[in-house]
């Protein structure tokens, strides 16, 4: 039993599902797996391309976010992929200050329709 593992690489099956879901979006033209943790999403104009760094993080904190951005300067999105994943407010704020969006899977599925600041600040509508 190892619940409590914090930030690890996502499972390939989950990344594959993610790519398939993204390809179904009308704003997405192509999804390229640069590696198991890095996706390039080409989108229709005027939507800019997304370079997504994918993690499986039970809780993505500020420290890990800082390290990810420092080690991957070309990314503009960090995705906490697992449905159990969460990120902290501080992580989101730090990333936004660096022009990087932090999303959960369901948030990304909504944010992918937007670009620029609206993409960066995207928040999922609340469920009833």
């Amino acid at each position, binding site marked *: *039993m*190892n*619940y*409590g*593992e*914090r930030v690890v690489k996502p*499972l390939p*099956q*989950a990344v594959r*599902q*993610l790519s398939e*879901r993204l390809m179904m979006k009308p704003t997405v033209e192509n999804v390229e797996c640069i590696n198991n943790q890095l996706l390039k999403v080409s989108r229709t104009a005027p939507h800019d391309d997304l370079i997504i760094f994918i993690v*499986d*993080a*039970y*809780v*993505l*904190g*500020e*420290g*890990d976010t800082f390290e990810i951005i420092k080690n991957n300067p070309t990314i503009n999105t960090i995705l906490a*992929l*697992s*449905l*159990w*994943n*969460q990120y*902290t*407010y501080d*992580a989101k704020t730090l990333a936004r200050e660096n022009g990087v969006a932090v999303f959960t*899977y369901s948030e990304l599925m909504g944010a992918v329709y937007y670009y620029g600041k609206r993409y960066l600040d995207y928040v999922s509508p609340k469920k009833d």
Partner: protein
Amino acid sequence: MDFLTSTVLSGIAWDGIKYAGNITSKYLKERLGDWIVNDKVLEELASKINDLPDAYKKNDKFLELAIQEDESLQELLRNIQPKTDVSFKDNVITGSTINNATGSSTIHSPTTNYYYGQNQPPQVKTKFQVKSELDQLLAENAAVFKMYGPTPENTSDLTTRKHEAWRSMASNYIVPNNEKIIKLLEEYIDLLNFEEKIILMEFKLHSEGFKDNQTREERIAEYPKFPIAINSVLGG
């Protein structure tokens, strides 16, 4: 009048069953040296316990229940008296220790018959009994985690809704079980070696954080993860 209880007998019998699958009168005789019991009764005890359904031979608690419910065994037990040189204090044998099958722990067993529903004195458990309870609680937690937690199998599916049940399941099952584990191991802290006491401390810190995170809208990332070594406390 004090006589041999189901608890004492089940503890001794379980120590034998878990290693050999059954018990013999010779085995019982060696471990009931502080009791007045003849060979014929020992034979009957061993035979009746061996004949109990396998379903009751899963752990010491089930075995104790089976012995309590077997009227013929209870009749035999009522006639087994302690030897006179055994002294009693607060219903616990203080002049006698009964080594269990591993030789690693002792039973200080209450010897008064307490029927179900009456107030029972605190019972001192063997190391094996404590380990069995610990394993049971950890197994329950593992089952909940496997079903609803972020296991690789669960997280690889982006269409599941198990994550929506995870918090309530964790709060309803894992959190209370963690508290039981801590209470149990703190009560029997003397059975733990130094490394195991450190593991218990790590488990306590994890448990507090895990509990807190279940009620937080925003979890705290820095709480320690589950110390896997807790599974091997009191022997793997």
